[in-house]
């Protein structure tokens, strides 16, 4: 293998690990948004616990990684070489970062599928796309996952409130659900690590096979398991605070009993779907659970506007990631190694721009701990909205000074 080809492999592996990192911080909210929202755990403690659980989960099994096959694409992914996978990963990463910027919980797996589909279209034409599988594996689950989890969470929340209802002179004691939340959210984080870290392991293994560095039937190398586990744990530890804020406060007002019910519903839906072979997106399940638990408590508000934005994000994930993947693949296919380098430079520039823009409206564990439910929705705003709010505040202050 010549030096250039080796460097390409290194670049693709690094990008795959970065995707794993974004997957981690994008999905921290699935397990930890509700315990943070109810005060069951401090934000930092919650993300540390989630990171540890994801790390352990990644080591439980490499089954998914070994058998990874992107059913939504016809043909063998390895035949197009590492450059095609690179283009697909670019699409997935950029879509993950865009949805993170807007605080929208969306499926990282769907972003990965989307990116790879877009790249595959450029390399293999539209015949490379398996539309039937997209309907079966992406669209139908996207319709049912939040609904199933929502019904489960609604029923569980209603039962929790009926059983612990206030009776004569006896307090409800619902604060005790916070203890349960620690365990239920840990289970969700563990199951996330078991599923999602393995996708990156699979992608890296695919790259190694495509580059001829490993045979197709060999297992996942230990360094791949270790690096993928570390990347997802590190990403989780970084805490996708923007999405945590949306899931914890932006969708519904969550109290400990609701939080516990939502996590149990998320955990049982994911476990049941994995066990029975009907793959569902963790993010969509968790979002549905939060809405369901919001509906389960009498007097709780569900913010349907935000829920609508999230659903739009879900349905845009596949085509948007595919579009970026296509653009990226056009460069890698047309210009070869130079295109790949250009792709990498452009991706880095865009990533830096998104991070810089996010700093203007920074959300971190401190602001999350200090914020109340009422101010949420404003906190997750576009820079334009932030400027508008600032101008409004300035105007109000001037008005006061005049008086």
């Amino acid at each position, binding site marked *: 293998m010549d030096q250039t080809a080796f460097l390409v492999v290194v670049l693709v592996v690094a990008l795959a690990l970065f995707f794993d990192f974004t997957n981690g911080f994008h999905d921290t909210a699935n397990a930890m948004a509700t315990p943070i929202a109810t005060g069951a755990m401090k934000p930092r403690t919650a993300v540390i616990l989630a990171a540890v659980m994801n790390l352990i989960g990644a080591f*439980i*099994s*490499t*089954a*998914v990684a*070994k*058998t990874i096959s992107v059913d939504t694409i016809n043909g063998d992914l390895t035949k197009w070489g590492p450059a095609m996978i690179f283009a697909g990963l670019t699409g997935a990463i950029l879509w993950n970062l865009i949805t993170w910027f807007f605080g929208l919980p969306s499926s990282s797996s769907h972003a990965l599928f989307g990116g790879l589909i877009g790249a595959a279209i450029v390399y293999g034409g539209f015949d490379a796309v398996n539309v*039937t599988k997209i*309907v*079966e594996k992406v669209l*139908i689950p996207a319709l*049912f996952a939040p609904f*199933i*989890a929502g*019904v*489960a*969470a609604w*029923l*569980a*929340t209603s*039962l*929790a409130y009926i*059983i*612990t209802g206030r009776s004569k*002179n*006896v*307090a*409800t*004691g*619902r604060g*005790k*659900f916070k203890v*349960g939340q620690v*365990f*239920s959210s840990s*289970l969700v984080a*563990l*199951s996330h690590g*078991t599923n999602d870290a393995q996708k990156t392991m699979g992608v890296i293994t695919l790259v190694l096979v495509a580059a001829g560095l490993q045979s197709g039937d060999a297992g996942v190398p230990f360094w791949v398991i270790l690096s993928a586990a570390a990347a997802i744990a590190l990403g989780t530890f970084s805490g996708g605070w923007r999405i945590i804020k949306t899931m914890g406060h932006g969708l519904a007002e969550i109290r400990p*009993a609701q939080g*516990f*019910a939502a996590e*149990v*519903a998320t*955990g*049982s*839906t994911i*476990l*049941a*779907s*994995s*066990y*029975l*072979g*009907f793959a*569902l997106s963790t993010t969509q399940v968790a979002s549905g659970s939060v809405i369901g638990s919001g509906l389960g408590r009498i007097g709780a508000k569900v913010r349907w506007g935000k829920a609508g934005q999230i659903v739009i994000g879900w349905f845009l994930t596949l085509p948007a990631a595919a579009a970026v993947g296509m653009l990226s693949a056009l460069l890698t296919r047309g210009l070869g190694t130079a295109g790949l380098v250009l792709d990498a430079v452009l991706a880095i520039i865009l990533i830096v721009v998104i991070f810089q823009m996010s700093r203007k409206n920074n959300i971190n564990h401190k602001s999350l701990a200090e914020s109340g439910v009422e101010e949420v929705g404003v906190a997750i705003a576009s820079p334009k909205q932030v400027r508008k709010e600032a101008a409004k505040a300035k105007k109000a202050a001037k008005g006061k000074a005049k008086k």
Partner: protein
Amino acid sequence: MIEIKWNDLIMVAGAAIGVSALVVTLFALGVRLLTNAQHAVAGKGKKKGESVSKEIAFRFTAVIAFALASSVMAYGLYILVTFSKLQAK
């Protein structure tokens, strides 16, 4: 030809709804009984022996409810691990 596994989907829905209702019911029962136990201790105008035995009964039942809820969750963990191992084979 689009092939949707409706049976699997119905089973996922049934298992998810059933299990979450079961775990939350057990845990909520534990919370309720524990709160009742605390109330029994603080109760006034009752004989001391009577409130103590009530408190113990409430606490004991609460522990059983929590243990059952934990067992279901632990079974979920067991499924997660063994299922992953099965897939690996």
